[in-house]
């Protein structure tokens, strides 16, 4: 099966500009996650979707970050305006929403989008 697709792979913007990242999960995966990985740190969850609804966005800085998952498939993460501290790799992951825990913890991560804010 095809993996989680993310684009672009790299993005360089100036502070105060806006940027958007795109994620296409594995076909049929109901749950989609966005994680932020700052250099030297482990990934941190930003938002979790179940189909096209938000399950958890408690760690999303809502004054500048927004995310949507229209039609329960693709997702877009936007930052507006960007700050220097937003420089990070943004990882998208998906998992099926089946009855068993074993399957639901079988995350597949995309290769990520590396954002540099200058």
């Amino acid at each position: 099966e095809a993996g989680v697709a993310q684009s672009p792979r790299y993005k360089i913007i100036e502070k105060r500009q806006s940027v958007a990242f795109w994620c296409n999960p594995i076909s049929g995966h109901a749950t989609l996650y966005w994680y932020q990985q700052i250099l030297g740190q482990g990934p941190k969850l930003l938002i979790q979707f179940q189909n096209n609804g938000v399950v958890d966005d408690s760690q999303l800085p809502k004054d500048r970050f927004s995310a949507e998952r229209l039609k329960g498939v693709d997702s877009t993460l936007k930052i507006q305006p960007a700050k220097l501290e937003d420089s990070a790799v943004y990882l998208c992951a998906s998992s099926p929403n089946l009855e068993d825990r074993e399957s639901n913890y079988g995350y597949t991560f995309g290769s990520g989008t590396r954002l540099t804010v200058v």
Partner: protein
Amino acid sequence: AQSVTQLDSQVPVFEEAPVELRCNYSSSVSVYLFWYVQYPNQGLQLLLKYLSGSTLVKGINGFEAEFNKSQTSFHLRKPSVHISDTAEYFCAVSVDDYKLSFGAGTTVTVRA
């Protein structure tokens, strides 16, 4: 809230030598535990996970980990490493909500 501490930020090791990466967690409830590997410019790949059952978990690429509830640890081991094992390794914990909390990572460098 749960958290993860990876006790070593960098681990240099010679090829064919054993390696152990240490991970401790804190949580007030039962947890599920994971180890992921990240190769340069790639996403995270699951090495192994503990959800229930045997506390010794075997994963891909010859890795294994042991869940120790009394010591709140989940250390990762490999008896003989290869150059291709050079990567960053992340320990993660979840409390049955499918969200992962990651440690800061351990960089493993395998030398010939």
